[in-house]
């Protein structure tokens, strides 16, 4: 390794590990080492990354308070510094870290709240869609066999905890209040159809349904994923909500027939229900 490379490697290692002494040969105005001056760089890095994390997780910050957040962030940023200089994307691993960080484990809902915040950031920065496919030429038997194009910003989350309600009431400026002990699980969809991130509470099974659509499944296959989650999956409510949310851009073009038969449609298992074409403004 060149001396340039070695020098910077040692400098960087000492930045991230506060137990290491400042590297030799770093001199203040009197030609002597100064731990305090090296600490400026250490501090800049840790504080800067902590601030980036706080910007990405403001509700987690509010739930645990400044001192605790600074402590947990201090561990996380040293364990997982950014992979790239694009800090708007930093902190993907923070929810998983909260799950294994012992002092945070008393707040069972905290990692899922963090996941919701991460989904919000991803939706915020997601790509703008290309030209929308449009709904002209919808087959007469409705949606069942269609695959749907969803907006690139769509994110879904299913939690055993009432994370959407916890998140909403702990946003900056909101007032937290009590939740009943049987508040139950939340399934959430986020989408940024234009400039604002919109957040929706889905019926139970909705997250699996939307995730299946994102994976390119047909509406009927996605509906089966929802029914897998609960036999009482509110499919029509989910569909109307999806259309009203502007998260759906239109049908995807039909796939060309698979040379060995379409793996999506087995003649032995027709869909268990028929879907009529949904009615919404503008549909011919």
């Amino acid at each position, binding site marked *: *390794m*060149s*001396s*340039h*490379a070695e*020098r*910077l*490697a040692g*400098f*960087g*290692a000492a*930045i*991230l590990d506060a137990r290491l002494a400042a590297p*030799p*040969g*770093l*001199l*203040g*105005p*009197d030609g002597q080492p*100064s*731990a*305090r*001056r*090296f600490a*400026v*760089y250490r501090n*800049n*890095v840790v504080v*800067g*990354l902590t601030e*980036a994390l706080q910007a990405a997780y403001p509700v987690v910050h509010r739930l645990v308070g400044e001192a605790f957040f600074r402590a947990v962030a201090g561990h996380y940023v040293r364990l*997982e*510094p*950014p*992979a*790239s*200089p*694009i*800090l*708007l*994307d930093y902190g993907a691993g923070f929810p998983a870290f909260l799950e294994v960080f012992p002092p945070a484990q008393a707040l069972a809902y905290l990692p899922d709240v963090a996941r919701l915040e991460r989904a919000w950031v991803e*939706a*915020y*920065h*997601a*790509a*703008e869609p290309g030209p929308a496919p449009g709904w002209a030429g919808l087959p007469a038997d409705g949606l069942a066999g269609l695959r749907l194009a969803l907006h*690139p*910003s769509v994110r879904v989350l299913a939690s055993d905890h009432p994370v959407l309600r916890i998140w909403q009431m702990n946003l900056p400026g909101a007032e937290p209040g009590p939740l009943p002990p049987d508040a139950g699980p939340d399934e959430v969809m986020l989408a*940024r159809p234009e*400039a604002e991130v919109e957040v929706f509470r889905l019926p139970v099974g909705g997250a699996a349904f939307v995730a299946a659509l994102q994976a390119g499944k047909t509406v009927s296959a996605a509906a089966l994923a929802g029914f897998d989650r609960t036999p009482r999956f509110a499919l029509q409510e989910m569909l109307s909500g999806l259309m009203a949310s502007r998260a759906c851009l239109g049908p995807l073009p039909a796939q060309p027939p698979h040379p060995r038969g379409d793996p999506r449609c087995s003649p032995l298992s027709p869909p268990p229900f028929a879907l009529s074409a949904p009615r919404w403004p503008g549909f011919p």
Partner: protein
Amino acid sequence: MQIAPAAPAFAPRPLPARGGVGLKAEHYRTILETGPDIGFFEVHAENYMGAGGPPHRVLTAIRERYPLSLHGVGLSIGAARDLDRGHLARLAALIARYQPGMFSEHLAWSTHDAGFLNDLLPLPYTDETLARVCTHIDQVQTVIGRQMLLENPTTYLAFAESTWPEVAFIAEVVRRTGCGLLLDVNNVHLSAVNLAGDAAAYLAAFPLAHVREIHLAGHAPETDEADRPLLIDSHDRPVDAAVWQLYADTVARTGPLPTLIEWDSDVPGWPDLAAEAARAEAVMAAHAAGGADVVAR
């Protein structure tokens, strides 16, 4: 049949020799609704490397109305390792899309095996690092197809093994690569105080003819363990009087230059920020020769 590439969305628009400010989210609405008379806006390139959403929407609206300066913080030009090709490609795409009047980066490094270190870290000034910095700048200017500006750093510590004074190092980089310079006058002041140097001597030796943009910023006065002054490059308050004086001395020799007020933390309301930019213009009007006496370019 040759298909011509799509024309860039924006016509080139150089930075005027006026005061500019950083584009901050808290001011978006005011700027787009009232259309203030500010010279230009500067943004950090990495903040616009997401795929879509409000950042690009706002920057597009701003660029439709104002000249733009693009300032990178993460390219790590001072590192021993190669520049990140993906990052360089993203920079090139951003520059092609927004056609900024200037693109600048730092004489510093931030990349490490452990990850990206989110600060502007110092490098020793040796023949080896000089060659490496020049290689990197050559690569950047080739990929983006235009000149870049290199910004001088704030120093808290000197490397024992350095064989080049910083000004001579920078002048040699300019000579070898043809890059321009972004002169951060606040950094000159901080480095001089922090290392018991002489800011006036630094500026007297600085290759001012190659300066294309100036940065001014506020700093936080602290002390080290021996109670010596340690000025921190905090960008969180108004520009210090000593820095305004150095700026006046500088533009008296260079003539008017695009001057950015770099205020990134504890950002004030729009009127106070705009007032700092207006003050820079007042200094230029009072001290900068119109053009006849300027250092030959």
